[in-house]
């Protein structure tokens, strides 16, 4: 046995980040006799607004061995096929960023080039028509994707909308059952090694001293360890992402339809999310306080709800940016303690996942080799920047001039690498495949339509391409028609799992 092995991990802060980390670490190291303690206080609230996710969350649940039926019932989850963006490129525009590809490549050239050529030749169909995920989302339909790769119904993925507080609660139970020790208390002091500056222990308000080899900072915006103790430098990104406040409020679900997508509607100085859960709908208005007052932002939010508000609106302040190092000495920041990006592309929980996944990949021993820490920081940083640029792109690629906020966004200088990507796409539809999401659907959805399609497709005749595209549309429509509605599907699923629980109890 390596004497340098980490024997005790202390996670500071519960909430979504803390309990996700605890659950993943106990699952990963259950056989290695690592002790895991999570310190949290019932008196400190959690942010927990990240209720919309991307498909990666399913890998996380799979890794933990959580049954999807149980997850859906426990967290009041609903299915999600993408994000609908309204009023972004122009007032009245409406597109979906789907969880699934558009058509598919032909002769090695990406689908959007063919779409573009047909567009030039007068075709009226938007890109959405070539994505099963987008069309099913619009129709309010859902079923699990087929595992048969030949089947059109395999050409999409899905994520969830869920109640983050219930998820944290569920993971707490999961972690405690597997041996994570929860310690109630507030951290009042941190003791450092006088020579190395490593964290030796934390002292709680009860006087209890908790020592450990590795400390995980999940204390949210505060960054109790990474910032207050280790003084990680914060890189401010508000020059590109001006929104710095959010108001959140749940409301009654719409009786009409359970939409299997997140709605992101742009307003005059920000945007509003709408996330339907089983029992309520989560709403929030993210805005830039330089351009709008809280009263105005709240009024806009309350005027745009599906049903009656179920609670008083809560407000949050934040600053877009990231700590330059998310891992310093023996302390790793995960979640908001490491950085913040507005939830426009539902990446909050994903970024927690990235932190956890990279921590496991670069799991240290007591030597805490600097090359290892540096590589973790480099990779986490790259992921933040990748998503940051993608979110900035939504603001930059607009033709809205109806407010000062949008004028500023439209005219801002964006990071150089992003500008190069946008220029390339603008000219010829070129997409760097290392970038996030279905890049072309967002670019085109925002109104950035390439000037030229790839001339290699000229080897195909217009008639053939038109026929081919028509077939895709017809097939997708047929597939969507026979899918159940998302509401029917999930009700059936919940009923079935309730029945299974009853059977089990008998």
């Amino acid at each position: 046995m390596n004497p340098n092995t980490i024997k005790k991990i202390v996670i500071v802060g519960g909430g979504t980040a803390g309990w996700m980390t605890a659950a993943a670490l106990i699952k990963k190291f259950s056989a290695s006799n690592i002790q895991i303690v999570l310190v949290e206080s019932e008196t400190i609230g959690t942010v927990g607004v990240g209720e919309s996710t991307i498909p990666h969350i399913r890998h996380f649940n799979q890794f933990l061995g959580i049954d999807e039926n149980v997850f859906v019932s426990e967290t009041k989850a609903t299915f999600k096929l993408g994000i609908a963006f309204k009023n972004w490129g122009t007032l009245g525009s409406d597109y979906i960023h789907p969880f699934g590809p558009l058509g598919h490549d032909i002769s090695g050239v990406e689908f959007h080039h063919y779409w573009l050529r047909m567009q030039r030749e007068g075709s009226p169909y938007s890109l959405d028509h070539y994505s099963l995920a987008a069309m099913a989302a619009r129709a309010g339909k859902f079923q699990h994707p087929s595992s048969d790769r030949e089947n059109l119904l395999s050409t999409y993925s899905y994520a969830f909308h869920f109640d983050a507080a219930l998820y944290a609660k569920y993971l707490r139970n999961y972690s405690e059952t597997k041996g994570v020790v929860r310690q109630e208390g507030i951290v009042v002091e941190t003791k450092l090694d006088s020579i190395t500056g490593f964290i030796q222990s934390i002292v709680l308000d009860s006087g209890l001293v908790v020592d450990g080899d590795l400390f995980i900072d999940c204390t949210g915006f505060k960054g109790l360890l990474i910032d207050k103790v280790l003084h990680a430098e914060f890189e401010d990104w508000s020059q590109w992402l001006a929104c710095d406040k959010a108001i959140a409020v749940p409301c009654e679900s719409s009786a009409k339809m359970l939409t299997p997508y997140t709605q992101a509607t742009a307003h005059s100085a920000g945007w509003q999310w709408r996330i339907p859960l089983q029992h309520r709908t989560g709403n929030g208005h993210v805005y830039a306080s330089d351009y709008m007052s809280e009263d105005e932002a709240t009024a806009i939010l309350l005027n745009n709800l599906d049903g009656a508000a179920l609670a008083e609106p809560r407000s949050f302040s934040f600053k877009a940016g990231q700590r330059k190092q998310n891992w310093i000495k023996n302390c790793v920041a995960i979640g908001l303690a490491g950085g913040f990006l507005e939830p426009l592309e539902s990446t909050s929980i994903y970024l927690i996942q990235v932190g956890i996944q990279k921590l496991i990949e670069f799991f240290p021993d007591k030597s805490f080799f600097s090359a290892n820490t540096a590589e973790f920081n480099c990779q986490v940083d790259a992921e933040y920047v990748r998503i940051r640029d993608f979110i900035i792109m939504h603001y930059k690629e607009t033709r809205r001039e109806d407010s000062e906020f949008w004028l500023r966004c439209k005219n801002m200088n964006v990071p150089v690498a992003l500008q190069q990507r946008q220029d390339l796409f603008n000219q010829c539809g070129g997409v760097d495949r290392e970038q996030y999401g279905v890049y072309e659907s967002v670019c085109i959805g925002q109104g950035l339509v390439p000037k030229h399609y790839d001339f290699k497709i000229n080897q195909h005749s217009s008639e053939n391409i038109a026929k081919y595209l028509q077939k895709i549309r017809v097939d997708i429509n047929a597939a969507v028609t026979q899918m159940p509605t998302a509401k029917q599907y999930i009700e059936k699923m919940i009923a079935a799992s309730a029945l299974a629980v009853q059977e089990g109890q008998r």
Partner: protein
Amino acid sequence: MTIKNIVIVGGGATGWSVACLLAKNLPRELVKISVVDDWRKDHGQVEFARSSIHRFHELIGLHEKQCMLNTDASFSLGLLCQDAHKNYMLVEGAYGAPLEGIDFQSVYYKSVLLGSPHSLEDYSLNAVAASLGRFGHPVADPKSIYSSIQYGLHLELDAYSKVLSAHALALGVELIASDLSRVNLSIKDVAIESIDLMNGMQLSADLFIDCTGERSILLGDAMGVASMADPLDKKFDSVAVGYRPLSMDAKPVTQLMTTENGYLKITPLKHQECVSYTYSSRFSSDDFIKQEMVALNVTNVVFSPLDCKKKTQYWVRNCVAMGYAGASVHDLFVSPMSLVRSAAVRLVDLLTDFDDLTFSIDEYNRLTHVELEQLRELAELYFYFERSSNAALGDHFNSNALSAGAQHRLDLFACSGRHPHQSAHLFNTIEWVVFFVGNQIFPQTCNLDVDSYDSKKLIQYLESLKTALYKAAEKMPLHKDYIAHLAFNK
């Protein structure tokens, strides 16, 4: 604006590879592709092509048999790095298999700590088969042990370029057999307006592809694009190439070794072996190298200078430099020809139909830099590990530290067996592992899962794996029989 006309200047395997891929992808009736071939040979006479060549052949629609039967090509299972200090085989394909969810590398490191004498290659079917001189194509059934084989080719470039040119002509490419006499630039934007040929023809085109080798006549000479050189790359400046008969026990691998004078590469073809010796003319005279070659039984030795350097940009305005015209690199683990293929694919990807190619050009140059940087790091680390075998290298590393990127890669592996993120994919993770382990670099920490795993069971598992692979390899045909059979079936 539509690209209607592409002129490739210089043939060889470089020019004809690019011609094939362009012709296969661009509509024949809309774009005319011409190759001005002066029948000069490519730099280096043979190539050890990694498995990625198959994908390229697929893209251009060239069948392996066309290649194997019309040239002196043989199959390759990898690269053997062997000298007084080390002996490791760098092969593609799978190494071992995870043990109850624990990754194989960790299992292997643990076995070394436990005193196991076996090398990582003992758990690779590719490597075991190679050491036994055996070869067979991979089988399609993923359940079969033989599905894990991954192979490349040993190609004699002159014959290979003839296969490619015949293929390109069939795809509608026009051959202009002449030599370049003059490049005419437009005064307005320093783009290439036309080229004059020795036969009196003048050719203009929308895009020129410079495949003139180290001379870089279009991009370098005419357009004045500057070169950058790495001091380490300059250590060796000459190459001697010759042939010798195939030895009786030739294995389907290329051999690479560093000597006091430089590095030696031996590539077995179907009927003979090509031996190339890269050295420094300041320390070893041609005569001396010739004697060394004679001692190795090599005849027909040809000497040529090697000037490793790369351009600051590879695509400028309407001219793209491919192969040595863009970057002349050491032929160590990844062949210069594989860079040509990768660049050709990139060019086709980015070559679109519009007035202003600026953004495509930027992206092409960016990606090319990334790829060359990965290659540079690999060469640097190879030379670093060979510094005790060669005085010139020893000298260099006495006064120069490793570059930051290479040092980080080495440190990261040495501390935890991990790898930096890479966005170029010339060389994959497992190959880095074999490379480091072959140079006696082992990670200091073990995976926690393997730490708590029963040692005896772990060793037993590895023994059984090794035996199974050996048995499977023994059942494969001998490489020379396999090739002979292929010819017989013609």
